């Protein structure tokens, strides 16, 4: 069966989403994974976006943004950011979410803000970045408030780093009980779904280890693409390939084939 890595990643992310959950979805892969899940196995998924767009099914392909007309054409409610990110997310009510990452570290901390020659935490200063990214958007609110969330990232050693340049959205901070001590209402990242496999946090140390890898890669390749000494589960498995039905359901959501363009 033919599919792209991006499609596989979206399907694997979708499998981590359960029926009935209240879930906040961001633009791009996050939205595709969420609406794929709803179509495939979670018909009662309660999905919404940061600006408070509820009850929608995207039309005409991947929305250009979270409030794009493609997702506003059949909404049941439009509210606002205080409602969506405040009342439902920062409050701790939201069950699940999907966020992206330019960089992610071994404790699931996400950077979407910038890349520095020397990161601020090392430098002890905060100069302008070498590369400016987008900022956290709603992801910080999600990372702090959602009961759990999923991180999607392209698996490359420059992105899977020992320590991110800047924590835009906190995972388990320095690991162990650091997140608990920080007093965040939400539970933290449940998994990192990458283009090569699934990483999950160790229950004690909170360090992410390899739980399963995709059929087209190897444990060695995943380790080489990871910027920290990646631990591997003794029961490490191979992620089941997308079924025909899953692919059909994903492509019914990704009507313009945005995930088929990249590999």
């Amino acid at each position, binding site marked *: 069966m033919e599919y792209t890595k991006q499609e596989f990643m979206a399907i694997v992310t979708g499998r981590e989403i359960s029926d009935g959950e209240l879930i906040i979805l961001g*633009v791009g892969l996050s939205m595709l994974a969420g609406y794929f899940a709803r179509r495939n196995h979670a018909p009662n998924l309660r999905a919404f*976006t*940061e*600006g*408070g*767009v509820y009850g929608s099914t995207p039309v*005409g392909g*991947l*929305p*250009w*943004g*979270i*409030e*794009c*007309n*493609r997702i*506003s*054409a059949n909404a049941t409610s*439009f*509210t*606002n*950011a*205080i409602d969506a*990110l*405040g009342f439902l997310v*920062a409050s701790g009510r939201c069950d699940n979410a999907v966020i992206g990452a330019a960089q992610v570290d071994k404790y699931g*901390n996400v950077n979407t*803000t910038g890349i520095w020659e020397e990161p*601020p*935490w090392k*430098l*002890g*200063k*905060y*100069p*302008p*970045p*070498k*590369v*400016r*990214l*987008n*900022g*956290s*958007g*709603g992801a*910080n*609110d999600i990372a*702090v*408030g959602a009961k759990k969330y999923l991180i999607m990232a392209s698996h490359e050693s420059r992105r899977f780093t020992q320590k991110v340049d*800047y*924590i*835009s*959205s*906190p995972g388990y*901070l320095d690991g162990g009980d650091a997140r608990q001590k*920080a*007093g*965040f*209402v939400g539970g933290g990242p449940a998994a990192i779904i990458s283009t090569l496999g699934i990483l999950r946090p160790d229950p004690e140390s909170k360090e992410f280890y390899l739980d399963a890898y995709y059929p087209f890669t190897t444990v060695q390749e995943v380790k080489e693409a990871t910027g920290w000494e990646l631990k591997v589960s003794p029961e490490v498995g191979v992620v089941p390939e997308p079924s025909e039905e899953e692919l059909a359901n994903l492509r019914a959501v990704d009507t313009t084939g945005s995930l088929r363009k990249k590999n």
Partner: protein
Amino acid sequence: MQNKLISMQEAVATYTWDGMTYCHGAAFPVGSDSVAFGKEMVKQGKKDLNVICHCGSSQVNLLAAVGAIRRCEVGFSGLEVYGFANGLNRAVTSGQTVIEDYSNGAMAFRLFGGAMNWPFVPATVNINNDQQWCSGDEPDTYPASNKIPVIADPFTGKTLGAFSSLRPEVAAIHVTMADVAGNAIMLGSEWSRFEMSRAADKVVLVADKIVDTACMRQYPNLVRIIAEVVEAVVYWPYCSWPQASCGLYDSDEEHVFYMNQAMKTAEDTEDYCQKWVHSYQNRDEYLDLIGADKLAQISATETAFLMDPYRQWIKTDAEVRELEARRKG
């Protein structure tokens, strides 16, 4: 009922000035926004701006690209699927624009604090990570201590942060439709426009459509921005272009990419401004510049049916002109 219709030129000349704290409102990042207001600020050469926005959108991208932004507080500065905002990123990496990052939620909570006239807002998000520790205003200190200071919950003793409240001097808010007094209905996500309209010292609306006040009397629950807090109303069709306005037009995909590409360098930005910012003097010329074919194309939106309940109250261009003339006269 007071008629507050004024021209875009007059609105920008009256309500913006060099060094001001300017806020713009929208259904971000690539949805509706008062983009045309930002273009008029470029035309009039406004500079040294302290910008407060939920998300940057093409407006901040352009203002930063021409070097007009000294400082910017923002939740999300990119253009989502369209990519990074090249103009803003160029201004930030060169050190021209100081950026102060918060989350999207935080920006809304801080505007709410401003609307309430609270001295600060308790912060349970953005704390214990670099959103708190990195401050563009305190570049020599890490971790920064003044951006989101640590406070104790007086009831439990638990550690929290304190967000400063936001009180922008002026907010230019895009709305789908407004009456001449400044009552407005927004279709699509409000994002933070409701609290923004109550937090800003002065509010200028930029409306895609002007409607009769009877429309507001039919749907008073939907009128989230009220005449009582609005100083001026500008009629500017396709105000968000090349971005979208829910119910009226989709984003002009080709132009968003083209514009963002141009923002990469100062030379191309200047070229872009000559062609697409300085080249029109009024609404008709603006629409001519976009072109009838493009207007027809982006107006064929799947969300068009959302406007159906309001159509009977929409003023024609000629009617709006008469109302504008009446106010002036």
